[in-house]
């Protein structure tokens, strides 16, 4: 049994929703909790921090159950969404606050504040007041203050949500760098899948108070185990099984039936970048692997995205999104998707063959 890291199992119910989660974060790892708003990701964080208490469960942090410990005894630091920098204290006082609580001598505190400010690239900011700082600077100070308490676990509650897009990208790289330098086990809540993909070692997808899937970014994106995870983590196309074309285009000699019809809501799912467009109906599809073919798809829109085109299509009354490198040249096109790139779901759950 892995003693190090965070192992938690918690149950809590509220007026409008119930939370029942269980997951593990390895020591020194950065894990992201992601999910739509109201899925319980912030509640999970507050439960781990001890700000609210679960009805039952256990939280093992580095081998010790901390479920009955008070917030201030847990050695878990948290960076809040609004950063919660104390307005009556300077930057240095804010960062020194947790050290002062531990009765660290003043000289040591000053040195430590300097070291932490350097870590978050804010040298010389000691004297400033929180209200004189920009959003990004506040975020870094909040991070430095959290690190100053020498936590065994760092919790970040949507730390970048209040910042603009460009700063977000920069700061998430910074957070990753600081994480690698300090090696503190970190749990990071976000609702932005791009942020989760770029920063996390492990992603925990939450749905309605439960863990939907845990895995690396690639696993989650390419091998989602439910329709919810599939469509929440990136764009995708969903088609009912009944509409799967009868004429499955294959290399000669291969079976025609790939999908077995099942009872229930049976759907197939594929990503837009896996759709190939053949805009000259006369030409064959440039595809040699087993694939599905969608004939006579109608182009209804085409958005230029910089490095690709996002093409909206209509096939048998069903919308399909495709990413193409070139703008389609005709209004009626032929589409193909490789069998290997498709996921099959029954009632929202993955059908394992």
């Amino acid at each position: 049994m892995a003693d190090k890291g965070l192992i938690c199992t918690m149950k809590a119910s509220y007026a409008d929703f119930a939370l029942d989660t269980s997951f593990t974060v390895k020591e020194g790892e950065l894990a992201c909790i992601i999910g739509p708003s109201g899925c319980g990701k912030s509640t999970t964080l507050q439960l781990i921090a001890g700000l609210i208490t679960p009805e039952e469960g256990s939280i093992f942090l580095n081998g010790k159950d901390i479920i009955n410990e008070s917030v201030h005894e847990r050695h878990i630091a948290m960076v809040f969404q609004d950063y919660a920098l104390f307005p009556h204290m300077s930057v240095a006082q804010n960062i020194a606050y947790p050290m002062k609580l531990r009765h660290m001598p003043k000289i040591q505190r000053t040195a430590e504040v300097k070291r932490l400010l350097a870590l978050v690239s804010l040298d010389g900011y000691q004297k400033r007041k929180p209200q004189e700082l920009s959003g990004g600077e506040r975020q870094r100070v909040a991070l430095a203050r959290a690190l100053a308490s020498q936590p065994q676990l760092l919790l970040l509650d949507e730390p970048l949500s209040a910042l603009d897009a460009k700063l977000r990208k920069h700061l998430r790289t910074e957070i990753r760098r600081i994480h690698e330098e300090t090696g503190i086990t970190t749990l990071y809540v976000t609702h932005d899948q791009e942020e989760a993909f770029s920063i996390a070692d492990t992603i925990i997808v939450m749905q309605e108070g439960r863990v939907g899937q845990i895995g690396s970014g690639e696993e989650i994106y390419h091998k989602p185990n439910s329709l919810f995870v599939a469509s929440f983590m990136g764009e995708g196309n969903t088609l009912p099984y009944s509409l799967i074309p009868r004429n499955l285009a294959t290399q000669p000699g291969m079976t025609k039936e790939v999908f077995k019809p099942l009872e229930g809501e049976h759907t197939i799912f594929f990503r837009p970048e896996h759709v190939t467009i053949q805009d000259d109906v006369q030409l064959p599809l440039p595809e040699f692997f087993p694939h599905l073919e969608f004939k006579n798809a109608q182009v209804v829109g085409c958005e230029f995205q910089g490095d690709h085109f996002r093409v909206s299509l209509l096939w048998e009354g069903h919308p399909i999104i495709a990413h193409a490198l070139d703008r389609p040249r005709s209004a009626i096109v032929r589409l193909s998707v490789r069998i290997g790139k498709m996921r099959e779901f029954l009632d929202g759950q993955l059908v394992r063959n």
Partner: protein
Amino acid sequence: MTKQVGGEYKGFYKAMPAPGAIVLLVLFLVPLFFTLSSAFLTEEGFSFSRIRQTFTSAYTVRILLFTLYQAALSTLFSVLVALPGAYLLANYSFRGRRFIKALTTVPFVIPSILVVLGFVIFFGNNGFLNRLLMKIFSLDKPPIQILYSFKAIILAHTFFNFPIVMNLVSTYWEHMDTHCEMAAWTLGAKKWETFRSITLPRLLPSVISAATLVFLFCYNSFAIILVLGGGPQYTTMEVEIYRLARTSMDIGGAAALSLFSILVTSVLLVWYNKSQKMLARSEAYNTSSTRLPKKPATLTGKLLAFFYSLVTLLFILGPLVSIVVRSFMASSTRSGTESFSFKWYAQLFALERGTGHMGSALEALTNSLLIASLVAIVTVPIALTLATAIRKKGFASSALELFGMLPMTVSSVIIGLGYFLISNSIRGGVSVGYTLVVLAHMVIAIPFVLRTILPEYRKMPLSYIQSSLTLGASPLRTFFLIEIPLLKGALITGGMFAFALSMGEITATLTLANSAIITLPVIMYRLIGSYNFQGACALGSILILVCSIVFLVSELAKGENNGR
């Protein structure tokens, strides 16, 4: 999602308000119990007869109707006078705007006895306004003769209360963003149409809330009615309770009427709370002011702004300045002309032997300062600990908030009456009497201090406390290291408020101790009663000085809070 501090701290946060709540409960309920027992207990034992008699008598109804009538009329005039001023203050920048705005907060701290005195000195037959008018228009009779009449009551209430409406409404107006108005203009509405259909409805909650507050003040008005009304034909519930208890010595009747008054005030307070909630719900309020005040464009506008500022200045400052000026005047002989003199101050500070009530002026001053300091020092911690629990959302905290505001349902006269009954049954010495005065003042001050602290406390994000906890501070250390420093401004303001309230308190003090206990306002009341206006003015000037200091300190504390 519930966001609250963890279960293991519930004990701590539950224990915090307990001492304050118990103190308030005792201070409030014990005198009330004494009052009620006098209402129900007659010589024959427990009976409803007195209550029934009081509640159904035509006399009670007449008093109630008059009380409501004068309050309604005073409120109406206050709102009418205040609205143009609120418009000017909120929408235009002109010289002296900030000064006027600051002046409008004066009535929040000014004691009613000063209003009475200022009114007499300024509007009286021999007052400054009449003298000025007589000089300008060379009249030989004072043109304004309104003292000791119904008009005087209404005018004094208006003078006292219109700045309150002006302050509350203009502050709300200032913070209302102009986007809706702009949208209306782009949709083709004319300026007046926009004002009528957009601005006015958005403004209404603040007007209703301010008007309700003024109505409550006028309903509970005591000193103004007692002195300026000048007779039993203009008696309100409050004054009648006082008269029954202290002049007619009909304690039972006073107690029964108190019960009736408590019921009426409760209804008014429920309405006030409703208007406050409505105000809080209205989305128009924007904490960062987006309204850019512009200069009055037209000459008429400029003239109007100037004229209105002048009138405001005259109405608010005139009486106060008159008091100070008059305090330095004394006539050398009985009928001689008045000239500059330190006579009254010399008497006040016992440098010269004081005659009549002036003899005990110094004692009254030291008494008042001592009582007010005690009240301020004790009230603030009680209110703070109550606020720690009330600031949270939930049933228990709103129940506690209602409880904290409970003393507001009971007017100062009734609190005074309760403590008077206690002192009757204890029959202690003078020191007991003073203790009772301090306690009575505390009961009156706690809701106000609570009202000062609570909004600041509620503004504090919960994440401050939560992050302090996650950083390793226990709840108690968080309270001292984070919560109290952040509330410093509000605590100072609250303390100052309690001090000023106690310094100027006359209603409960007078009801509690007619002659045995003297405070500054009580002596002022007696001096006015014996027509020694200059002596009263000297004491009044001291009171003005104290209130000004309080006012300045609380403004400074406010400025400090805005810095964050």
